[in-house]
């Protein structure tokens, strides 16, 4: 069994999770600070990839990044390389598709975070950056982790957009999901089942991780100061 699809899926999911992580946090932070009207609009735009067909996302990306697309031409002109049909293109597709999962989870964590802690930091004279990194981030740790793991899991399984922007080149751009599709197309059920099994295992492990994170988060929220009186 050639393990490349697993390796490729993992690296795509990992790298795009890194992007999603920072982008999601940044977006959630910006949206949280916007006035309510604009907030709703931006929120819709940022959630869009969650409900858009992956094929539509893929189509967009190809029109933008393809060698004939505006961004694609720039890239070719500057670095003499192209982005489509490479495994790197999948990173972009997966980042876009998984972004809303991270964004929404983090936004939820930010919203349920006790604002008074932020204000406390500020009235104590600490900079906004300090408050963000030392108070908000540690306080939303569980939410951040849950969002990250969810995005990672979803990224591991992305199919539609990935297959459009990266194609299926065994050993180069093949991922677990495109491989399952290919194996099914070839009627190679035995191997397809094996990959499905691998996928189930990973997804299940990832979900268990989220579950434990969520549980930990809940038990932490104990009424402060009530015991040890």
């Amino acid at each position, binding site marked *: 069994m050639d393990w490349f699809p697993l390796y490729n899926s993992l690296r795509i999911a990992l790298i795009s999770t890194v992007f999603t992580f920072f982008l999601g946090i940044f977006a959630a932070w910006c949206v949280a600070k916007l006035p309510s009207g604009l907030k709703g609009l931006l929120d819709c735009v940022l959630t869009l990839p969650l409900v858009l067909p992956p094929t539509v996302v893929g189509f967009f990306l190809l029109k933008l990044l393809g060698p004939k697309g505006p961004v694609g031409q720039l890239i070719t002109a500057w670095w003499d390389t192209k982005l489509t049909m490479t495994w790197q293109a999948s990173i972009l597709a997966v980042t876009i598709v998984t972004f809303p999962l991270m964004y929404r989870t983090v936004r939820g964590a930010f919203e349920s975070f*006790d604002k*008074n802690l932020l*204000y*406390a930091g*500020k*009235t104590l*004279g600490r*900079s906004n950056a300090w408050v963000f990194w030392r108070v908000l981030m540690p306080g939303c740790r569980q939410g951040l982790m849950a969002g990250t793991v969810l995005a990672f899991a979803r990224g591991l399984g992305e199919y539609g957009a990935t297959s459009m922007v990266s194609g299926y080149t065994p050993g180069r751009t093949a991922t677990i999901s495109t491989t399952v599709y290919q194996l099914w197309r070839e009627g190679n059920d035995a191997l397809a089942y094996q990959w499905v099994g691998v996928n189930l295992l990973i997804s299940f492990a990832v979900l268990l991780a989220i579950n434990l994170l969520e549980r930990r988060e809940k038990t932490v929220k104990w009424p*402060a*100061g009530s015991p040890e009186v």
Partner: protein
Amino acid sequence: MLEVDIRKDFGKFKLNVSFSADRGITGLLGASGCGKSMTLKCVAGIVTPDAGRIVLDGRVLFDSGKRVDLSPQERRVGYLFQNYALFPNMTVAQNIAAGVRGRDRARREAMVADMVKSFYLEDLERKYPRQLSGGQQQRVALARILASEPHALLLDEPFSALDSYLRWQVELELGELLSPFPGPVLFVTHSRDEVYRMCENVCVLDHGRSQPEQDVHTLFDSPATVSSCLLTGCKNLSRAVPGPDGRVACTDWGVSLDPGRDIPEGTTHVGVRSHYLRPVEAPGENTIPCTVERVIDDVFSTVVLLSTPGGGEGYSRLRLELPKEAWAALSSRDSLCLQIRPEDLLLLKD
């Protein structure tokens, strides 16, 4: 000296507060939802008022006219939050260190050590907030705030999160810890007892509007409005109509009483504290003939509910509080005549 004069419109709720506070503790007293926390937030720079001015020791913190709006960091106003707002991911020492301004490490450590000592936190330095009792949490929060060397202090219901057993002790401590503080302190509460014990001046808030600030004893001895009268714990109130003879007709109690002084313009209610109702043997000047409705044995006193000539429901009812022995010593305990000294009759505006 802290001068506050701000307005903010929340739609249904409108904040319109104006008062000034000198060195020492000034109470902000008001019912739940009247805008006490909101006022503090405006002063601290967490909420921006629509219009007005906030000046601290001559420094303009906010001025809608001159478009001044300092950030919370620049205001140097310490805010003790209702639930203390300790950073849960930091130890006691780290929490206090978070308050120290500047990057000088040695100075920070010295300051933390100093605060730990003066707030009796020696054994707790390495603990996390969730491992502390309410009183300890409050001490840490206060240490943290004072480490940031604020020019004014805002305390938002500092005892509301505490068990009643702890309250007394923490109140004492707080009083002692605050006495050396050189700037103005705003103390928010809805407990008249706390205000009485801790504050010199008090500003009453009512549905977002502030009443002129006054000396605590003035407020308790002669509240001017119905709301401040209720806030000071007076439970006997009656609607009143000033008569031509210098007396007031107390419509709820069904009697007419002599206040012994000129009745101020706009008087709509009269009130009398439970402690100042005196049972007398026979009807006489300024007495109300009452029938005993219910006797409640309280811990150190006896509370008697009485119906007046005006009736036995709502505001027509009077509440009398007597030392247990005084009640036991009364000859008739079915119907009583209650006398009100003219100076004990409070004349109130709506």
